[in-house]
Structure formats: C-alpha cells, structure tokens
C-alpha cells in the first residue's frame, strides 16, 4: 500500500487498523452487523452493475458506467458518512455503489438506467442516476467532469454560514484532478478552512489516458499541501481502511478544515458500455487488477473473521439476484416519461 503523504494524523490507514477500538475487534463505531449489511449492499451493487452491462448489450440500457472495482471505496466512505450522520454527498457518474448503498432501490436504479418514469434523479431527463436524490442527500448535477467540486465547496460554505454540522464529500476521478476547477475548489476550501472532503477515486485512467499522461506525479494527494489541505493516500480496495480514513477525514474537515483523500483503486470494466478498453489496455493488466476484487476480498474477510459462513455468502448472492430480477421486470414495465412533461420544472414559480 502506498504510504500517505500527510493528513489528519499523517499515518497510514493500515496502521490505524491495528489500533482497534471496539470490542468486536473492529474499528471505531462499526460492528459486525454493519459489515454484514455492507457486504450485502456490495453484492447487490455488483449484481445490478453486471446486469446493467448485459442489458446494454441487449439494447435496453443506452449507456452505463460501471462501479466494478470501486466498490470498497464507495461503500467504505458511505459507511463512514452514514455513521457520522451529517454528510452531504456530491457524487460522479461512476458512483453507483454510493447511491445504492445510500438508499436507492434496485427498481429505481433500473428505471433510471432505462430512462423510465420513476427515476428519482431526473425522471429520465438525464443520464442514469444523474440530477439529484435529495432524500438521500446526494447531488450529481451533470456529466461535466469536475463540475461538482466547487459546488461541494459552496455547499460547505453554506453549512458554515448556517451554522450546522454538515460535511460535504465530493467524489471525483483522477481525470478530474486535471481540471482547473479542481484547483479552484481546493484553493477556496483551503483559504476558508471549509468542512469539505475531496475524495478522489484514482483508478489511473481517464477513459484511455493513463495517469502518466495526465500528471507528472504519483500521488494526487501531494497537491494538498499547496492548498493548505490535509492529504491522505488510502488503499481504496480495502473497505475497512476506506472507512477509517473517511471517518477521520470527516472529523478533521469539521474541526480543522478540508481533506484530500486519494483512494487508490482499479477500474475493472471499460470506461463505459460505449468504450472498448482493448484498444489501450493490455489484457494482463485487467487480469492482474481483478486479483484484488473488492467483493471477493470482502467475502473472504467476512468468512475469515467468522462474520459470515459460505452458506450465508451464497444466500446473499442468491437474494441479490432475485432482487435484481424483480427490479429488472419493474424497470421494463415502467412507462416512459410523458412527452407533455418536457417543459416542466424549467423554473421554480
């Protein structure tokens, strides 16, 4: 694992893992039940993610970006946010696992991917799961890479003004780190020490462009210092480490100011269903990274720790499939948005 550069306590997430605090031997604030719950969510997301990809091939879903490989980061950070209870999320298009784990039902997901009535994000106006899900404290307005960062900073500024405890967490990729707005967002957050976490899902690719063509450095977290931010590198394939690092970042953001959390992780699938990664990515590379599949890793961890047995694992998987089957049916049966709604909600009256 990469060593963190600096950060709230300038120590690696792994080392903190050994400093277990709860009596179950788990890190601060979580129980075995939490992990079982989150393992179920992870399996559910993986199952629906694979299904959606298949449905794209069947012509039923126009486009999808997969969260496969990113699940540990997405779920670990959400677990931290849920435990804290006072976070607001600005996600990006790859964050299916964040959104589902935050409460979106499989049926809603299916409707969204198929552009059907009942998509809670935009009711079919936008790309799948784009718009907002305010019930679950998520905004993801656009596909424009990095556009959410300054918005998250503004949200954090409003928290400060309104005197509440909300911490904004904004998710983005390594590609987004190149955008000028990313710099502007971090700089402003640093000046005003705002309660915001910049959570980078660094999968080393922006579509086909590898990290070395994007930046001259290895760790994006290195940039934190130049903005007066805390910067931490985390093994984003390990849900426990992600949980701990995020939990700590939330405290830091609230008490001292912004944090840049760089999660090192892997994108298992092509960029989207429109992409063909064979054009630019060696097959062995994909095989290699798949060795660290977060779903398998977490499953193993759960059995090793005795939180689940193989039978339960299989049951969870079966339940997920059943749930997704039903959701798929519901999605297919759902009506298309009525054309007469096309002009609705352009303005608030």
């Amino acid at each position, binding site marked *: 694992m990469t060593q963190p550069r600096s950060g709230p306590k300038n120590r690696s997430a792994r080392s903190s893992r050994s400093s277990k605090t709860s009596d179950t031997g788990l890190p601060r604030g979580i129980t075995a039940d939490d992990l079982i719950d989150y393992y179920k969510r992870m399996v559910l997301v993986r199952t629906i993610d694979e299904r959606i990809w298949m449905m794209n091939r069947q012509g039923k879903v126009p486009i999808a970006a997969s969260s496969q490989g990113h699940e540990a980061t997405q779920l670990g950070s959400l677990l931290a946010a849920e435990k804290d209870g006072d976070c607001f999320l600005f996600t990006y298009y790859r964050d299916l696992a964040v959104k589902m784990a935050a409460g979106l039902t499989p049926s809603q997901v299916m409707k969204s991917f198929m552009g059907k009535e009942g998509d809670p994000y935009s*009711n079919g106006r936008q790309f799948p799961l784009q718009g907002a899900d305010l019930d679950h404290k998520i905004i993801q307005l656009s596909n424009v890479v990095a556009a959410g960062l300054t918005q998250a900073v503004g949200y954090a500024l409003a928290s400060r003004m309104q005197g509440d405890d909300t911490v904004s967490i904004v998710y983005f990729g390594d590609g987004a780190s190149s955008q000028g707005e990313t710099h502007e967002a971090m700089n402003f957050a640093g000046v005003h020490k705002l309660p915001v976490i910049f959570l980078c899902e660094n999968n080393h690719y922006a579509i086909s462009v590898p990290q070395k063509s994007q930046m001259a450095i290895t760790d994006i977290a290195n940039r934190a210092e130049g903005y007066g931010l805390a910067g931490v590198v985390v093994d984003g394939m390990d849900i426990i480490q992600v949980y701990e690092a995020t939990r700590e970042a939330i405290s830091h953001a609230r008490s001292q100011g912004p944090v840049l959390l760089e999660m090192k992780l892997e994108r298992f699938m092509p960029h989207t269903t429109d992409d063909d990664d064979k054009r630019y990515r060696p097959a062995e590379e994909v095989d290699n990274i798949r060795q660290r599949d977060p779903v398998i890793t977490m499953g193993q961890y759960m059995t090793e720790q005795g939180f689940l047995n193989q039978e339960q694992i299989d049951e969870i998987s079966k339940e997920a499939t059943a749930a997704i089957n039903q959701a798929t049916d519901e999605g297919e049966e759902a009506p298309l948005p009525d054309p007469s709604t096309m002009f609705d909600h352009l303005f608030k009256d």
Partner: protein
Amino acid sequence: MAVISVIEAVRSAMQEEMRRDSSVFVLGEDVGKRGGVFLSTQGFLDEFGESRVIDTPLAEASIMGIALGAAFKGMRPIPEVQFSDFVWPSINQLVGEAARARYGSNGQLTVPMVVRIPYGGGIRGGLYHSQNVESFFFHVPGLKVVSPGTPYDAKGLLKSAIRDDNLIIFLEHKKSYRLVRGEVPEEEYTIPIGPSDVKRQGSNITVVSYGLMLHHCLEAAELLSQEDVDVEVVDLRTLRPLDTETIINSVKKTGKILIVHEDNLTGGVGAEIAAIVADQAFEYLDGPISRLCGPDIPTMPFAQSLEEAYLPNTDKVASALRELAQY
C-alpha cells in the same frame, strides 16, 4: 423621490435585500474592503461582515460554482463578475450547471442566485473591458436575463431578481453607472421580471432597445418629433423571457420597427426580435425590419476614434429612424 445614479440604485437594492433576508450574500473579486471596483458593495463589509461579503480569489469558475453550491443549500448568493469580459471562465457553471439544475433534477434543486455583470462599452475599455455578453445568455433556457436602463428600473428589478427563486443574469451597463441618474422613490418597490416598458408612446415607428442605448433612442425620438415623426420607444428591461406581446402590439400600431443594441449585429438579441416580428406581425409591416447594432468586430477598440466608430449613438439612431420613416 431622490435622484440617484444607477450604481447607487444597484447598491441600495442589494443593501435593502441583505437587511431583509439574512440568506442573501455577495461574493466576488474586491467586493470587500474595496467595495467593488465600481463601488456597488461600498460599505457592505462594515455592515454585513466578512461572512456575507466575501472577497474571493481571482477565479470566476469557482465564484459561480461556489455560489451555486451555496444556493443548493438555501442561501441566496449574489456573485459579481468584475467585468463581463471575465465571465467566460465561469460559463460552464452558469450555462452548463446552474441554468439546468432545476430542469436536470426534475424540480428538486433550486437556484436562487443573481449573477451581477457590469457590461458594455463607451468607457475606453478596449477589447477586454467593454464586451456585450447578453446574446450568449439570451439563448440559454433555464435562466432569466435582465438589463435595466434607468436607476428606477435597476433598483426595482434587482430587488425582484434577488427574491426570485431562479438563476438571473443581471446585466448592468457600466457606462450608465454614474452617467445615468433618475428619480427613485424612498419607499420600497419592486418591478416584475419579464414585462418591458414603453418609455415613450408614439405612432409612426417602434424602436426597441435596452440598457444604455435606450437613452440614445429616447434622445433620437425627441429629435425626430421635431421632424414630425412620432417614435415609440420600447425598453425591454428583461431580455429573457422576452416580452413579445408588447413588441408585437407596438409594431401592429406603428408598422415599422428599428431595433438598437450595442452588441454585435449578427446573432444578437435583435435578430430574435426581428424573427418574432417577421413571424407574428408580418401582415402589419410597412417597412423592412431594421437593426442598428454594433458592427461585427470583437467589440469597441480602445482608441477614441475607433470606439466612436463602433458605438451606436443618438445621431446614428436618428438617421436610421429617418431612413425608416421615409420607406
């Protein structure tokens, strides 16, 4: 009624609204101690404090993105773009994000935000301190564009804009700031966003304009009245949504129309007005739909001779009206 300038009207509108509603705040470059480069926020830092009067780093994209994020949480930001010429870096946040937030979230998000933009030329600002940017915003669904010409309208419209729950691009002609003065009531008032205002009644020709050019049109109308041509002057005030009805009614009455703006001719706001008139008042027209606009060069150059050559003025409006009158 006190006689005040446009900049005073703008300042007092913001001040009243900030006193009235604590969720209103201003942010931008030099809005703090400096009070804004045009002094539109003079005294605000002392009155409202650092948390509601925020001097930002020099980075327009973030000014808008941050304002938008704060709006999502129920604040009512008034970001200032120091000069219209510097709005471009923030276009993605304005056009791509803010203007679509409500639509793209199917009504979940609200953007109660007023973007104040000093614009326009005639102040020896050259290519980067004179731009007319209205036609860019005019084309964008999901936002409203306001461009007052008088202190009275500026104050009443800005107050409405601040209370409006939608994204408003508020264009203030920077030459009008100190040049244009007028009566403004002491008591509180607002002016609805949308309706244009017939600033002068007339029966022979309709002239449609907004912002600083309005005043040249009014002066030219005065000149023409001495030549027995009775000119009606429509001040748009709000560009988007466009008050089509007032324009069409006026043209139906006069049969002739001249559109005047400082912005470049091609693809300007005047083109849309012409198109609407050509479609909806086609049978009432007694002459070609005419436009007197800035020529198609980037904007007014710095040298006095070139700046004058670029800008429409009272004489040029009067000549165009005469030509149309003779058609």
